[in-house]
């Protein structure tokens, strides 16, 4: 077990190294970080060269990379070119907003899809199952911005027009410190995310419940005369929930990155929007910082998920 964790961790370090090189090349070369000064009449060419020198942008790429990596390992992700703030500080300001949004979404999604998935598995091929399956197929095929824009059109724009109580779009200025305002602004983005998320999860739960229900030990339990309820909740569900552990474990790091499109549409001050805003400006320290944090989280959580899995499913031995 410990040998396994140690080996996986060494592999993970190697993977992380590749990630940093890859991200550095892509972000550093994708845009000129000083592009924002290109049209500034107060900056002469000499000023720009001096600035480039001061920021270390004129050094060879490998040197820049090693310097960035050295600082990043000490927790210093550099400063944003645009806002001049330290990247770590910017991220820590945005992270709580994203986590609140994403964890609310994840919890609601899991509850609803457990309910729907079990229901449609137990009543396989019934009318209800067909309806749920159809909806999950449609939800699965839907880009999130379709729902995000549609919900905004109906519940924010049209409801306001019709004189109904309407939800805020995010385009208006609001105070994130006011808890009621905060929740009001959360309703639409969370609902959109839940609709899309439920489609995938419910389908997944249905499949894994069906798989377990067809197994011999479930038949044995039924043959013993146990009620359907006991068979389902005491015997089947425990095993059906196992694959869910993997899926949730692999989804959690993704929550950190936020929901880029949804956050942008609803102007939610989270990580996804931060990434998008600064990616557009070519502000590479910010973009790199976010990439580093989210992908490290993915790498770490993959190992954690594998280890946790051995606790919930003792049949699996890590070697």
């Amino acid at each position, binding site marked *: 077990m410990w040998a396994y964790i140690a080996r996986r961790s060494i592999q993970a370090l190697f993977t992380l190294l590749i*990630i940093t090189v890859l991200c550095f090349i*892509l972000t550093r070369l994708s845009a000129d970080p000083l592009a924002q000064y290109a049209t500034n009449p107060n900056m002469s060419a000499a000023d720009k060269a001096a600035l480039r020198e001061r920021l270390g942008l004129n050094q060879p790429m490998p040197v820049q990379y090693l310097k960035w990596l050295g600082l990043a390992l000490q927790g210093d992700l550099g400063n944003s070119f645009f806002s001049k703030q330290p990247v770590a500080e910017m991220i820590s300001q945005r992270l709580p907003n994203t986590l609140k949004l994403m964890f609310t979404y994840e919890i609601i999604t899991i509850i609803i899809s457990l309910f729907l998935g079990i229901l449609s598995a137990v009543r396989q091929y019934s009318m209800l199952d067909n309806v749920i399956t159809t909806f999950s197929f*449609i939800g699965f095929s839907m880009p999130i911005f*379709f729902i995000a824009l549609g919900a905004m059109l109906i519940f924010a724009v049209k409801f306001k*027009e019709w004189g109904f109580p309407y939800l805020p*779009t995010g385009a208006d200025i609001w105070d994130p410190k006011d808890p009621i305002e905060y929740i009001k602004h959360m309703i639409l983005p969370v609902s959109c995310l839940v609709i899309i998320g439920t489609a995938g999860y419910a389908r997944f739960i249905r499949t894994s419940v069906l798989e377990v229900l067809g197994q011999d030990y479930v038949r044995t339990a039924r043959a013993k005369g146990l009620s359907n309820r006991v068979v389902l909740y005491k015997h089947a569900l425990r095993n059906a929930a196992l694959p869910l552990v993997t899926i949730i474990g692999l989804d959690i790091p*993704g929550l950190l990155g936020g929901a880029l499109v949804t956050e942008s549409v609803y102007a939610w001050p989270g990580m996804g929007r931060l990434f998008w805003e600064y990616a557009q400006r070519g502000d590479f320290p910010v973009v790199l910082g976010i990439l580093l944090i989210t992908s490290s989280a993915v790498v770490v959580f993959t190992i954690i998920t594998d280890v946790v899995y051995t606790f919930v499913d003792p049949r699996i031995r890590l070697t």
Partner: protein
Amino acid sequence: MSSESLASDIAILKTEIIAPPLTPQQLILRRFSKHRLAIWGMVGFGLLLLFIIVGSILVTDKKANEVDLMARLSPPNQLHWMGTDSTGRDIFARMIHGGQISLIVGFLSVIFSVSVGAVVGGVAAYYGGWVDTVLMRFTEAMLSIPSLFLLIVLGKYLGKDVQTITVFGHSYSGSVAIVIVVIGATSWMYLARIVRANVLSLREMDYISASKSLGASDVRIFFRHLIPNTMGAIIVSSTLGLAGAILNEAYVSFLGLGVQPPTASWGNMLTSAQSFIQRGAWWMWVFPSLFIIITILCINLIGDGLRDAFDPRSTRNL
């Protein structure tokens, strides 16, 4: 019992006994044709292709890019069946030509990603050792970066300078080619893993040792034996990958990093819809979204049918 019916019974029996067993391909085809939803998906996708092909013959791409500021933001009417956008371009015509672009981007980027995925996965499994280690770490690194972030960063990286390309007398924004590369380069990883796993088990099979001992070269074994035998997995995952590619095109174009206007794509039509939806221009949002959803839905249904058909464990409907 009349002798006639007896004769026909014998004839049936004969054909049943004598008929050669179905080949694996025939079995797959039979399983697929029994999958009702997949057939509906095929019908839907066929209609969609018909709409785009016939449409692009009837409606020129000039019409799709024609600006008419007098008629801007007009709701659907007899002249403009799906209304017009913020510069008065006809949405119906743009749906046709945008669909063309979206599907071309989808198909080509799947071909790109399947080729990369099959080669990376196949090479990693076949050679093993440090080749495998390096390639799989790289695959894992790519998989660990959130996919939308990767799309954006790569899109920014490749989309620095965009030229216009001319194909068959039609000029397209060079961004189309970039989008294909961006989507292809960010979606080969799952397939690489599937192919690797398949080849790992195939490598140990007797017929591979046999052809090796007969002196077949690595390249021959790779393309003649290993790849054809993982074809099922490749077909299924590329069908589902096509749905993903079209969806990804919509995402990057929606974010303004994909296909650049005036060349239409379903994704970039929605970009402009975003700013006008607050003013109630629902048609700018409904039609492109609807077409994207229907396309993805049909392809996903086909993919689901193919998966059941190729998977020998799913014996239902046989």
